[in-house]
Protein backbone atom coordinates (compact mmCIF):
# COMPACT_ATOMS: atom_id res chain seq x y z
CA UNK A 1 0.00 0.00 0.00
CA UNK A 2 1.28 3.46 -0.77
CA UNK A 3 2.11 6.01 1.92
CA UNK A 4 -0.67 8.28 0.79
CA UNK A 5 -3.33 5.64 1.12
CA UNK A 6 -1.86 4.70 4.51
CA UNK A 7 -2.33 8.28 5.68
CA UNK A 8 -5.84 8.34 4.32
CA UNK A 9 -6.61 5.04 6.00
CA UNK A 10 -5.13 6.32 9.26
CA UNK A 11 -7.61 9.18 9.34
CA UNK A 12 -10.50 6.89 8.47
CA UNK A 13 -9.64 4.48 11.26
CA UNK A 14 -8.91 7.22 13.74
CA UNK A 15 -12.18 9.00 13.10
CA UNK A 16 -13.98 5.69 13.61
CA UNK A 17 -12.14 5.34 16.90
CA UNK A 18 -13.22 8.81 17.98
CA UNK A 19 -16.84 8.11 17.14
CA UNK A 20 -16.61 4.89 19.12
CA UNK A 21 -15.36 6.79 22.16
CA UNK A 22 -18.12 9.37 21.80
CA UNK A 23 -20.63 6.58 22.31
CA UNK A 24 -19.81 6.78 25.98
CA UNK A 25 -20.36 10.47 26.36
CA UNK A 26 -20.15 10.75 30.13
CA UNK A 27 -16.90 8.80 30.38
CA UNK A 28 -15.57 10.83 27.50
CA UNK A 29 -16.24 14.19 29.14
CA UNK A 30 -15.05 12.98 32.53
CA UNK A 31 -11.76 11.94 31.01
CA UNK A 32 -11.14 15.37 29.56
CA UNK A 33 -12.07 17.04 32.85
CA UNK A 34 -9.98 14.55 34.79
CA UNK A 35 -6.92 15.24 32.66
CA UNK A 36 -7.32 18.98 33.07
CA UNK A 37 -7.62 18.83 36.85
CA UNK A 38 -4.73 16.39 37.18
CA UNK A 39 -2.38 18.76 35.39
CA UNK A 40 -3.67 21.84 37.14
CA UNK A 41 -2.93 19.93 40.37
CA UNK A 42 0.67 19.26 39.35
CA UNK A 43 1.15 22.90 38.41
CA UNK A 44 -0.20 23.98 41.81
CA UNK A 45 2.19 21.65 43.63
CA UNK A 46 5.06 23.12 41.71
CA UNK A 47 3.93 26.60 42.56
CA UNK A 48 3.79 25.75 46.27
CA UNK A 49 7.30 24.29 46.16
CA UNK A 50 8.71 27.25 44.32
CA UNK A 51 6.88 29.78 46.46
CA UNK A 52 9.10 28.64 49.32
CA UNK A 53 12.32 28.36 47.37
CA UNK A 54 11.67 30.93 44.68
CA UNK A 55 13.87 28.96 42.30
CA UNK A 56 15.25 25.50 41.77
CA UNK A 57 18.81 25.28 40.58
CA UNK A 58 19.11 28.17 38.14
CA UNK A 59 15.50 27.85 37.10
CA UNK A 60 12.86 30.31 38.23
CA UNK A 61 9.17 29.58 38.47
CA UNK A 62 8.22 30.57 34.92
CA UNK A 63 11.12 28.73 33.40
CA UNK A 64 10.07 25.64 35.28
CA UNK A 65 6.55 26.10 34.09
CA UNK A 66 7.91 26.27 30.57
CA UNK A 67 9.70 22.99 31.17
CA UNK A 68 6.49 21.51 32.44
CA UNK A 69 4.46 22.80 29.49
CA UNK A 70 6.95 21.41 27.02
CA UNK A 71 6.76 18.03 28.70
CA UNK A 72 2.99 17.83 28.69
CA UNK A 73 2.45 19.16 25.20
CA UNK A 74 4.57 16.39 23.73
CA UNK A 75 3.10 13.85 26.14
CA UNK A 76 -0.36 15.02 25.08
CA UNK A 77 0.39 14.31 21.45
CA UNK A 78 2.17 11.15 22.40
CA UNK A 79 -0.76 9.59 24.22
CA UNK A 80 -3.15 10.55 21.44
CA UNK A 81 -1.04 8.47 19.12
CA UNK A 82 0.59 5.79 21.22
CA UNK A 83 -1.06 5.35 24.61
CA UNK A 84 -3.11 2.55 23.14
CA UNK A 85 0.05 0.45 22.96
CA UNK A 86 0.12 -0.23 26.67
CA UNK A 87 -3.00 -2.34 26.27
CA UNK A 88 -1.27 -4.63 23.75
CA UNK A 89 -0.89 -7.31 26.42
CA UNK A 90 -4.66 -7.45 26.91
CA UNK A 91 -5.14 -7.94 23.17
CA UNK A 92 -2.62 -10.76 23.18
CA UNK A 93 -4.10 -12.49 26.23
CA UNK A 94 -7.63 -12.26 24.84
CA UNK A 95 -6.52 -13.44 21.42
CA UNK A 96 -7.89 -10.32 19.76
CA UNK A 97 -4.44 -9.38 18.49
CA UNK A 98 -4.67 -12.05 15.79
CA UNK A 99 -7.15 -9.91 13.95
CA UNK A 100 -4.36 -7.48 13.06
CA UNK A 101 -2.40 -10.31 11.52
CA UNK A 102 -5.00 -11.46 9.03
CA UNK A 103 -5.26 -8.12 7.29
CA UNK A 104 -3.17 -6.88 4.40
CA UNK A 105 -1.68 -3.88 6.19
CA UNK A 106 1.25 -3.30 8.52
CA UNK A 107 0.17 -4.56 11.96
CA UNK A 108 2.08 -1.82 13.80
CA UNK A 109 0.21 0.78 11.84
CA UNK A 110 -3.09 -1.05 12.17
CA UNK A 111 -2.75 -1.37 15.92
CA UNK A 112 -1.75 2.26 16.25
CA UNK A 113 -4.75 3.49 14.33
CA UNK A 114 -7.26 1.48 16.34
CA UNK A 115 -7.50 4.10 19.01
CA UNK A 116 -7.04 7.81 19.13
CA UNK A 117 -7.25 9.20 22.60
CA UNK A 118 -9.22 12.40 22.06
CA UNK A 119 -9.65 12.90 25.76
CA UNK A 120 -6.07 14.05 25.95
CA UNK A 121 -7.06 17.15 24.05
CA UNK A 122 -7.85 18.45 27.53
CA UNK A 123 -4.22 18.52 28.47
CA UNK A 124 -3.24 19.73 25.06
CA UNK A 125 -5.37 22.84 25.54
CA UNK A 126 -3.99 23.21 29.05
CA UNK A 127 -0.43 23.12 27.80
CA UNK A 128 -1.12 25.73 25.11
CA UNK A 129 -2.51 28.09 27.75
CA UNK A 130 0.58 27.56 29.90
CA UNK A 131 2.84 28.15 26.92
CA UNK A 132 1.21 31.47 26.14
CA UNK A 133 1.28 32.56 29.75
CA UNK A 134 4.94 31.66 30.22
CA UNK A 135 5.97 33.20 26.91
CA UNK A 136 4.53 36.53 28.03
CA UNK A 137 5.98 36.29 31.53
CA UNK A 138 9.46 35.44 30.27
CA UNK A 139 9.03 37.70 27.26
CA UNK A 140 10.32 34.96 24.96
CA UNK A 141 11.06 36.34 21.53
CA UNK A 142 9.38 33.86 19.21
CA UNK A 143 11.37 34.27 16.08
CA UNK A 144 10.47 31.91 13.26
CA UNK A 145 13.62 29.81 13.78
CA UNK A 146 12.84 29.45 17.47
CA UNK A 147 9.27 28.51 16.73
CA UNK A 148 10.37 25.90 14.21
CA UNK A 149 12.84 24.49 16.71
CA UNK A 150 10.06 24.33 19.29
CA UNK A 151 7.89 22.32 16.89
CA UNK A 152 10.77 20.03 15.93
CA UNK A 153 11.61 19.34 19.55
CA UNK A 154 7.95 18.62 20.34
CA UNK A 155 8.05 16.04 17.55
CA UNK A 156 11.26 14.70 19.09
CA UNK A 157 9.58 14.49 22.50
CA UNK A 158 6.58 12.70 21.04
CA UNK A 159 8.86 10.18 19.35
CA UNK A 160 10.96 9.57 22.46
CA UNK A 161 8.00 9.01 24.75
CA UNK A 162 6.03 7.18 22.07
CA UNK A 163 9.07 5.01 21.44
CA UNK A 164 9.17 4.21 25.13
CA UNK A 165 5.50 3.20 25.11
CA UNK A 166 6.08 1.08 22.03
CA UNK A 167 9.07 -0.66 23.63
CA UNK A 168 7.11 -1.35 26.80
CA UNK A 169 4.24 -2.77 24.79
CA UNK A 170 6.62 -4.99 22.83
CA UNK A 171 7.49 -6.76 26.07
CA UNK A 172 4.03 -8.29 25.88
CA UNK A 173 5.24 -10.41 22.98
CA UNK A 174 7.64 -12.11 25.36
CA UNK A 175 5.99 -11.96 28.75
CA UNK A 176 2.29 -11.55 27.88
CA UNK A 177 1.94 -9.15 30.81
CA UNK A 178 3.65 -5.82 30.27
CA UNK A 179 1.24 -3.24 31.54
CA UNK A 180 2.93 -2.96 34.96
CA UNK A 181 6.14 -1.93 33.25
CA UNK A 182 4.51 1.32 32.29
CA UNK A 183 4.17 2.26 35.94
CA UNK A 184 7.74 1.21 36.72
CA UNK A 185 9.42 3.10 33.87
CA UNK A 186 7.17 5.66 32.30
CA UNK A 187 5.59 7.09 35.39
CA UNK A 188 8.79 7.95 37.31
CA UNK A 189 10.49 9.15 34.14
CA UNK A 190 7.70 11.58 33.43
CA UNK A 191 7.72 12.89 36.98
CA UNK A 192 11.45 13.37 36.68
CA UNK A 193 10.82 15.56 33.67
CA UNK A 194 8.78 18.03 35.70
CA UNK A 195 11.99 19.49 37.15
CA UNK A 196 15.26 20.59 35.54
CA UNK A 197 17.63 17.72 35.01
CA UNK A 198 20.45 19.70 36.65
CA UNK A 199 19.00 19.19 40.14
CA UNK A 200 19.46 15.41 39.92
CA UNK A 201 22.60 13.37 40.62
CA UNK A 202 25.02 13.02 37.71
CA UNK A 203 24.10 9.38 37.18
CA UNK A 204 20.46 10.21 36.65
CA UNK A 205 21.40 13.00 34.26
CA UNK A 206 23.54 10.66 32.21
CA UNK A 207 20.85 8.04 32.04
CA UNK A 208 18.30 10.63 30.95
CA UNK A 209 20.67 11.84 28.26
CA UNK A 210 22.13 8.68 26.83
CA UNK A 211 20.16 5.62 27.95
CA UNK A 212 16.50 6.48 28.25
CA UNK A 213 16.71 9.85 26.52
CA UNK A 214 14.03 11.65 28.48
CA UNK A 215 16.29 14.67 28.87
CA UNK A 216 15.63 15.40 25.21
CA UNK A 217 11.89 15.59 25.74
CA UNK A 218 11.96 18.94 27.50
CA UNK A 219 15.08 19.82 29.50
CA UNK A 220 17.66 20.00 26.69
CA UNK A 221 15.40 21.72 24.16
CA UNK A 222 14.26 24.14 26.87
CA UNK A 223 17.87 25.19 27.53
CA UNK A 224 18.13 26.12 23.86
CA UNK A 225 14.89 28.07 23.75
CA UNK A 226 15.45 29.86 27.07
CA UNK A 227 19.17 30.43 26.44
CA UNK A 228 20.25 28.54 29.55
CA UNK A 229 23.28 26.32 30.01
CA UNK A 230 22.69 22.60 30.39
CA UNK A 231 25.20 22.18 33.23
CA UNK A 232 27.64 19.39 32.50
CA UNK A 233 26.57 19.00 28.88
CA UNK A 234 27.59 20.85 25.72
CA UNK A 235 25.41 23.89 25.07
CA UNK A 236 24.25 22.61 21.67
CA UNK A 237 22.96 19.29 23.00
CA UNK A 238 19.34 20.47 22.88
CA UNK A 239 19.47 20.76 19.10
CA UNK A 240 19.77 17.00 18.87
CA UNK A 241 16.31 16.44 20.30
CA UNK A 242 14.49 15.73 16.99
CA UNK A 243 17.27 13.41 15.81
CA UNK A 244 17.37 11.54 19.11
CA UNK A 245 13.59 11.11 18.86
CA UNK A 246 13.85 9.74 15.36
CA UNK A 247 16.58 7.26 16.26
CA UNK A 248 14.92 6.17 19.48
CA UNK A 249 11.60 5.58 17.79
CA UNK A 250 13.21 3.61 14.98
CA UNK A 251 14.83 1.35 17.57
CA UNK A 252 11.49 0.95 19.35
CA UNK A 253 9.78 0.03 16.08
CA UNK A 254 12.47 -2.54 15.31
CA UNK A 255 12.06 -4.10 18.75
CA UNK A 256 8.30 -4.24 18.29
CA UNK A 257 8.63 -5.98 14.95
CA UNK A 258 11.14 -8.39 16.48
CA UNK A 259 8.62 -9.13 19.21
CA UNK A 260 5.96 -9.75 16.60
CA UNK A 261 8.22 -12.29 14.94
CA UNK A 262 8.74 -14.05 18.22
CA UNK A 263 4.96 -14.01 18.81
CA UNK A 264 4.40 -15.65 15.45
CA UNK A 265 6.77 -18.46 16.23
CA UNK A 266 5.87 -18.94 19.88
CA UNK A 267 2.17 -18.23 19.98
CA UNK A 268 0.64 -17.03 23.20
Amino acid sequence: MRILSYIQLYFRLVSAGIRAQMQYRFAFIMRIVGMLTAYAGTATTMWVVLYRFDALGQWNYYEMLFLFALAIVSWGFCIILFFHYISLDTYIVNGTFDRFLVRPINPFFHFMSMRFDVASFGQFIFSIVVFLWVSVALSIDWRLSKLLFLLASIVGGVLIQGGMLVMISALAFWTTKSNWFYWVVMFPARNLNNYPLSIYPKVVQWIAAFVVPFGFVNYFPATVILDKTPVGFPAYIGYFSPLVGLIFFTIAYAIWMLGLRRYKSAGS
Partner: protein
Amino acid sequence: MAIIEVEHIRKEFKIAKRETGIAGALKSIFNRKFTIKEAVQDISFTIEKGEMVGYIGPNGAGKSTTIKILTGILVPTSGKVLVNGIVPYENRQQNAKNIGVVFGQRTQLWWDLPTIESFELLKEIYQVSDKRYKENMDTFTEILGLDEFINTPVRQLSLGQRMRADIAASLLHDPEILYLDEPTIGLDVVAKEKMRQFIQEINRIRQVTVILTTHDMEDIEKLCKRMILIDHGQKVYDGAIDTVKNRFGKMRTLVVDVEENGKDLVLSGGELIRVEGNRKWIRFNRDEISASQLIAQITSTHNITDLTVEEPTIESIISRIYQEGLSEEAPVSVH
Protein backbone atom coordinates in the same frame (compact mmCIF):
# COMPACT_ATOMS: atom_id res chain seq x y z
CA MET B 1 -5.25 -27.60 -8.87
CA ALA B 2 -4.76 -27.68 -5.16
CA ILE B 3 -5.32 -24.28 -3.57
CA ILE B 4 -3.95 -25.34 -0.21
CA GLU B 5 -1.00 -27.67 0.25
CA VAL B 6 0.13 -28.65 3.69
CA GLU B 7 3.16 -30.90 4.01
CA HIS B 8 4.25 -32.44 7.27
CA ILE B 9 3.67 -29.43 9.47
CA ARG B 10 4.58 -29.56 13.10
CA LYS B 11 4.07 -26.91 15.74
CA GLU B 12 5.60 -26.98 19.18
CA PHE B 13 4.76 -24.68 22.03
CA LYS B 14 6.91 -24.08 25.04
CA ILE B 15 4.70 -23.97 28.06
CA ALA B 16 5.86 -22.71 31.44
CA LYS B 17 5.11 -25.22 34.16
CA ARG B 18 3.14 -23.73 36.97
CA GLU B 19 3.58 -24.97 40.45
CA THR B 20 0.85 -24.83 43.01
CA GLY B 21 0.73 -22.63 46.08
CA ILE B 22 2.44 -19.35 46.85
CA ALA B 23 5.79 -21.02 47.44
CA GLY B 24 5.51 -22.77 44.11
CA ALA B 25 4.58 -19.54 42.37
CA LEU B 26 7.62 -17.82 43.88
CA LYS B 27 9.83 -20.69 42.87
CA SER B 28 8.63 -20.58 39.30
CA ILE B 29 9.51 -16.87 39.05
CA PHE B 30 13.18 -17.64 39.51
CA ASN B 31 13.37 -21.11 38.14
CA ARG B 32 10.94 -21.63 35.34
CA LYS B 33 10.55 -25.06 33.93
CA PHE B 34 9.12 -25.61 30.52
CA THR B 35 7.35 -28.45 28.89
CA ILE B 36 7.15 -28.79 25.14
CA LYS B 37 3.68 -29.32 23.83
CA GLU B 38 3.26 -30.54 20.30
CA ALA B 39 0.03 -28.92 19.23
CA VAL B 40 0.38 -30.21 15.69
CA GLN B 41 2.50 -33.23 14.86
CA ASP B 42 3.06 -34.04 11.24
CA ILE B 43 -0.13 -33.10 9.46
CA SER B 44 -0.41 -33.12 5.68
CA PHE B 45 -3.30 -32.54 3.35
CA THR B 46 -4.27 -30.76 0.15
CA ILE B 47 -7.47 -28.94 -0.59
CA GLU B 48 -8.84 -28.23 -4.05
CA LYS B 49 -10.32 -24.98 -5.21
CA GLY B 50 -14.01 -24.66 -4.36
CA GLU B 51 -13.98 -27.50 -1.87
CA MET B 52 -15.75 -27.25 1.45
CA VAL B 53 -13.81 -29.19 4.03
CA GLY B 54 -14.63 -29.86 7.63
CA TYR B 55 -11.60 -29.71 9.86
CA ILE B 56 -12.70 -31.27 13.05
CA GLY B 57 -11.51 -32.68 16.30
CA PRO B 58 -12.07 -32.35 20.03
CA ASN B 59 -10.94 -29.32 22.03
CA GLY B 60 -7.19 -28.92 22.01
CA ALA B 61 -6.71 -31.24 19.05
CA GLY B 62 -4.77 -28.62 17.11
CA LYS B 63 -7.54 -27.22 14.91
CA SER B 64 -6.97 -23.57 15.70
CA THR B 65 -3.20 -23.94 15.53
CA THR B 66 -3.49 -25.31 11.99
CA ILE B 67 -5.80 -22.48 10.97
CA LYS B 68 -3.38 -19.96 12.46
CA ILE B 69 -0.55 -21.45 10.42
CA LEU B 70 -2.65 -21.37 7.25
CA THR B 71 -3.60 -17.74 7.83
CA GLY B 72 0.00 -16.74 8.52
CA ILE B 73 -0.48 -15.84 12.18
CA LEU B 74 1.84 -18.61 13.32
CA VAL B 75 5.02 -20.03 11.83
CA PRO B 76 5.19 -23.83 11.92
CA THR B 77 8.14 -25.40 13.73
CA SER B 78 8.75 -27.47 10.61
CA GLY B 79 6.96 -28.44 7.43
CA LYS B 80 5.73 -26.59 4.39
CA VAL B 81 2.53 -24.73 3.59
CA LEU B 82 1.42 -23.19 0.32
CA VAL B 83 -1.82 -21.28 0.11
CA ASN B 84 -2.65 -20.11 -3.38
CA GLY B 85 1.04 -20.38 -4.22
CA ILE B 86 2.09 -18.23 -1.24
CA VAL B 87 3.80 -19.26 1.97
CA PRO B 88 1.38 -17.57 4.36
CA TYR B 89 3.73 -16.90 7.27
CA GLU B 90 6.41 -15.47 4.99
CA ASN B 91 4.13 -13.28 2.92
CA ARG B 92 1.46 -12.69 5.49
CA GLN B 93 0.08 -9.46 4.08
CA GLN B 94 -0.01 -10.82 0.54
CA ASN B 95 -1.78 -13.92 1.82
CA ALA B 96 -4.26 -11.79 3.76
CA LYS B 97 -5.64 -10.40 0.49
CA ASN B 98 -6.67 -13.89 -0.62
CA ILE B 99 -8.30 -15.08 2.56
CA GLY B 100 -11.25 -14.31 4.75
CA VAL B 101 -11.20 -15.38 8.38
CA VAL B 102 -14.01 -15.68 10.87
CA PHE B 103 -13.18 -16.59 14.44
CA GLY B 104 -16.52 -17.57 15.91
CA GLN B 105 -15.60 -16.49 19.40
CA ARG B 106 -14.16 -13.10 18.49
CA THR B 107 -15.60 -10.52 16.23
CA GLN B 108 -13.52 -8.59 13.77
CA LEU B 109 -16.04 -5.77 13.73
CA TRP B 110 -15.77 -2.44 15.50
CA TRP B 111 -17.64 -3.13 18.69
CA ASP B 112 -19.02 0.32 19.46
CA LEU B 113 -19.94 1.45 15.96
CA PRO B 114 -22.98 0.80 13.79
CA THR B 115 -22.36 -2.38 11.78
CA ILE B 116 -22.23 -0.57 8.44
CA GLU B 117 -19.16 1.39 9.60
CA SER B 118 -17.14 -1.79 10.04
CA PHE B 119 -17.88 -2.70 6.44
CA GLU B 120 -16.82 0.72 5.28
CA LEU B 121 -13.57 0.55 7.22
CA LEU B 122 -12.79 -2.90 5.89
CA LYS B 123 -13.45 -1.60 2.41
CA GLU B 124 -10.64 0.91 2.99
CA ILE B 125 -8.31 -1.61 4.63
CA TYR B 126 -8.66 -4.09 1.77
CA GLN B 127 -8.92 -1.34 -0.83
CA VAL B 128 -12.09 -2.69 -2.36
CA SER B 129 -13.34 -0.62 -5.28
CA ASP B 130 -16.60 1.30 -4.82
CA LYS B 131 -18.28 -0.75 -7.50
CA ARG B 132 -17.27 -4.12 -6.10
CA TYR B 133 -18.16 -3.01 -2.59
CA LYS B 134 -21.65 -2.09 -3.66
CA GLU B 135 -22.17 -5.34 -5.54
CA ASN B 136 -20.96 -7.37 -2.60
CA MET B 137 -23.04 -5.48 -0.09
CA ASP B 138 -26.12 -6.03 -2.26
CA THR B 139 -25.46 -9.76 -2.42
CA PHE B 140 -24.80 -10.10 1.29
CA THR B 141 -27.79 -8.01 2.22
CA GLU B 142 -29.89 -10.35 0.16
CA ILE B 143 -28.58 -13.66 1.44
CA LEU B 144 -27.55 -12.68 4.96
CA GLY B 145 -30.33 -10.22 5.64
CA LEU B 146 -27.92 -7.53 6.76
CA ASP B 147 -30.42 -4.72 6.38
CA GLU B 148 -32.29 -5.68 9.51
CA PHE B 149 -29.37 -4.61 11.72
CA ILE B 150 -26.98 -2.64 9.53
CA ASN B 151 -27.33 0.54 11.59
CA THR B 152 -27.21 -1.14 14.99
CA PRO B 153 -23.96 -0.95 16.95
CA VAL B 154 -22.19 -4.30 16.86
CA ARG B 155 -22.29 -4.67 20.64
CA GLN B 156 -26.10 -4.71 20.50
CA LEU B 157 -26.37 -7.45 17.87
CA SER B 158 -27.52 -10.93 18.78
CA LEU B 159 -24.89 -13.62 18.41
CA GLY B 160 -26.55 -14.90 15.23
CA GLN B 161 -26.65 -11.43 13.69
CA ARG B 162 -23.06 -10.79 14.67
CA MET B 163 -21.92 -13.99 13.02
CA ARG B 164 -23.74 -13.05 9.83
CA ALA B 165 -22.11 -9.63 9.88
CA ASP B 166 -18.72 -11.22 10.54
CA ILE B 167 -19.09 -13.59 7.60
CA ALA B 168 -20.10 -10.76 5.30
CA ALA B 169 -17.14 -8.73 6.57
CA SER B 170 -14.75 -11.55 5.81
CA LEU B 171 -15.99 -11.82 2.22
CA LEU B 172 -16.02 -8.15 1.24
CA HIS B 173 -12.67 -8.32 -0.55
CA ASP B 174 -13.59 -11.42 -2.59
CA PRO B 175 -11.19 -13.83 -0.93
CA GLU B 176 -10.64 -17.18 -2.60
CA ILE B 177 -10.44 -19.00 0.69
CA LEU B 178 -12.64 -18.64 3.72
CA TYR B 179 -11.55 -19.97 7.10
CA LEU B 180 -14.40 -20.44 9.51
CA ASP B 181 -13.30 -21.23 13.04
CA GLU B 182 -16.32 -22.47 15.00
CA PRO B 183 -18.89 -20.41 13.07
CA THR B 184 -21.86 -21.90 14.88
CA ILE B 185 -20.52 -21.91 18.41
CA GLY B 186 -23.05 -20.70 20.93
CA LEU B 187 -25.85 -20.31 18.40
CA ASP B 188 -29.31 -21.73 19.00
CA VAL B 189 -30.70 -24.43 16.73
CA VAL B 190 -32.51 -22.04 14.39
CA ALA B 191 -29.59 -19.67 14.05
CA LYS B 192 -27.25 -22.60 13.47
CA GLU B 193 -29.41 -23.88 10.66
CA LYS B 194 -29.55 -20.44 9.08
CA MET B 195 -25.82 -20.04 9.35
CA ARG B 196 -25.28 -23.36 7.59
CA GLN B 197 -27.52 -22.25 4.76
CA PHE B 198 -25.54 -19.04 4.37
CA ILE B 199 -22.26 -20.87 4.23
CA GLN B 200 -23.61 -23.28 1.65
CA GLU B 201 -25.02 -20.48 -0.44
CA ILE B 202 -21.76 -18.56 -0.40
CA ASN B 203 -19.75 -21.60 -1.38
CA ARG B 204 -22.16 -22.24 -4.22
CA ILE B 205 -22.44 -18.77 -5.73
CA ARG B 206 -18.83 -17.69 -5.17
CA GLN B 207 -16.87 -20.90 -5.53
CA VAL B 208 -15.07 -19.93 -2.34
CA THR B 209 -12.94 -22.66 -0.84
CA VAL B 210 -14.18 -23.12 2.71
CA ILE B 211 -12.33 -24.66 5.61
CA LEU B 212 -14.53 -25.08 8.58
CA THR B 213 -13.47 -26.05 12.05
CA THR B 214 -16.09 -27.10 14.50
CA HIS B 215 -16.82 -29.71 17.03
CA ASP B 216 -20.41 -29.92 16.04
CA MET B 217 -20.82 -33.08 13.97
CA GLU B 218 -24.02 -31.75 12.46
CA ASP B 219 -22.24 -28.75 10.90
CA ILE B 220 -19.99 -31.09 9.01
CA GLU B 221 -22.72 -33.48 7.97
CA LYS B 222 -24.82 -30.69 6.53
CA LEU B 223 -22.05 -28.72 4.88
CA CYS B 224 -19.13 -30.82 3.82
CA LYS B 225 -18.47 -33.78 1.60
CA ARG B 226 -15.03 -34.21 3.02
CA MET B 227 -13.71 -34.09 6.52
CA ILE B 228 -10.31 -34.10 8.07
CA LEU B 229 -10.45 -35.45 11.57
CA ILE B 230 -7.60 -34.66 13.91
CA ASP B 231 -6.83 -35.64 17.46
CA HIS B 232 -3.81 -34.87 19.62
CA GLY B 233 -2.24 -32.98 16.75
CA GLN B 234 -2.44 -35.88 14.34
CA LYS B 235 -4.64 -36.69 11.43
CA VAL B 236 -6.97 -39.54 12.28
CA TYR B 237 -9.06 -39.51 9.14
CA ASP B 238 -9.19 -37.65 5.85
CA GLY B 239 -11.85 -38.56 3.38
CA ALA B 240 -15.51 -38.65 2.53
CA ILE B 241 -17.85 -37.77 5.31
CA ASP B 242 -20.24 -40.48 4.17
CA THR B 243 -17.76 -43.20 5.08
CA VAL B 244 -17.67 -42.02 8.65
CA LYS B 245 -21.37 -41.35 8.73
CA ASN B 246 -22.23 -44.79 7.42
CA ARG B 247 -19.86 -46.49 9.81
CA PHE B 248 -20.45 -44.55 12.95
CA GLY B 249 -23.04 -41.90 12.31
CA LYS B 250 -25.83 -44.46 12.58
CA MET B 251 -24.80 -45.53 16.02
CA ARG B 252 -26.93 -44.24 18.83
CA THR B 253 -26.76 -44.81 22.51
CA LEU B 254 -29.88 -45.36 24.54
CA VAL B 255 -29.48 -44.36 28.15
CA VAL B 256 -32.16 -45.82 30.42
CA ASP B 257 -32.86 -45.78 34.13
CA VAL B 258 -34.65 -48.99 35.11
CA GLU B 259 -36.10 -50.28 38.34
CA GLU B 260 -34.12 -53.28 39.51
CA ASN B 261 -36.23 -56.43 39.84
CA GLY B 262 -33.55 -59.12 39.87
CA LYS B 263 -34.07 -60.01 36.23
CA ASP B 264 -31.37 -59.61 33.57
CA LEU B 265 -31.83 -57.22 30.68
CA VAL B 266 -32.36 -59.28 27.53
CA LEU B 267 -31.45 -57.34 24.41
CA SER B 268 -31.31 -58.33 20.78
CA GLY B 269 -29.94 -55.76 18.35
CA GLY B 270 -28.40 -53.61 21.06
CA GLU B 271 -25.21 -53.87 23.05
CA LEU B 272 -24.95 -53.03 26.72
CA ILE B 273 -21.79 -50.96 26.98
CA ARG B 274 -21.92 -49.44 30.44
CA VAL B 275 -23.80 -49.87 33.70
CA GLU B 276 -23.84 -47.49 36.63
CA GLY B 277 -26.32 -48.45 39.33
CA ASN B 278 -29.74 -48.31 37.74
CA ARG B 279 -28.52 -46.49 34.67
CA LYS B 280 -27.59 -48.49 31.60
CA TRP B 281 -26.00 -47.45 28.30
CA ILE B 282 -27.07 -49.46 25.27
CA ARG B 283 -25.47 -48.91 21.89
CA PHE B 284 -27.42 -49.75 18.77
CA ASN B 285 -27.36 -49.22 15.02
CA ARG B 286 -30.26 -47.07 13.89
CA ASP B 287 -30.57 -49.07 10.66
CA GLU B 288 -30.87 -52.41 12.43
CA ILE B 289 -33.19 -51.55 15.24
CA SER B 290 -35.17 -48.49 16.21
CA ALA B 291 -35.02 -46.90 19.62
CA SER B 292 -38.70 -47.71 20.20
CA GLN B 293 -38.15 -51.39 19.44
CA LEU B 294 -35.33 -51.44 21.90
CA ILE B 295 -37.42 -49.68 24.51
CA ALA B 296 -40.24 -52.17 23.94
CA GLN B 297 -37.82 -55.01 24.64
CA ILE B 298 -36.75 -53.43 27.90
CA THR B 299 -40.25 -52.59 29.11
CA SER B 300 -41.29 -56.23 28.64
CA THR B 301 -39.12 -57.10 31.61
CA HIS B 302 -38.37 -53.83 33.42
CA ASN B 303 -39.96 -50.54 34.38
CA ILE B 304 -38.20 -47.59 32.75
CA THR B 305 -38.08 -44.47 34.93
CA ASP B 306 -36.10 -42.24 32.59
CA LEU B 307 -34.47 -42.41 29.16
CA THR B 308 -32.51 -40.42 26.58
CA VAL B 309 -31.05 -41.22 23.17
CA GLU B 310 -27.57 -39.87 22.53
CA GLU B 311 -26.16 -39.09 19.11
CA PRO B 312 -22.52 -39.86 18.47
CA THR B 313 -20.13 -37.09 19.45
CA ILE B 314 -16.86 -36.41 17.70
CA GLU B 315 -15.06 -37.80 20.72
CA SER B 316 -16.92 -41.09 20.48
CA ILE B 317 -16.32 -41.32 16.74
CA ILE B 318 -12.62 -40.77 17.28
CA SER B 319 -12.41 -43.44 19.92
CA ARG B 320 -14.24 -45.86 17.64
CA ILE B 321 -11.89 -45.07 14.78
CA TYR B 322 -9.00 -45.86 17.10
CA GLN B 323 -10.64 -49.12 18.10
CA GLU B 324 -11.82 -50.30 14.74
CA GLY B 325 -9.67 -48.40 12.29
CA LEU B 326 -10.81 -46.74 9.12
CA SER B 327 -8.93 -46.49 5.88
CA GLU B 328 -7.21 -43.17 5.39
CA GLU B 329 -8.15 -42.98 1.76
CA ALA B 330 -11.66 -42.13 0.89
CA PRO B 331 -13.29 -45.03 -0.93
CA VAL B 332 -15.54 -42.71 -2.89
CA SER B 333 -14.51 -39.70 -4.89
CA VAL B 334 -14.45 -36.59 -2.79
CA HIS B 335 -14.94 -34.00 -5.44
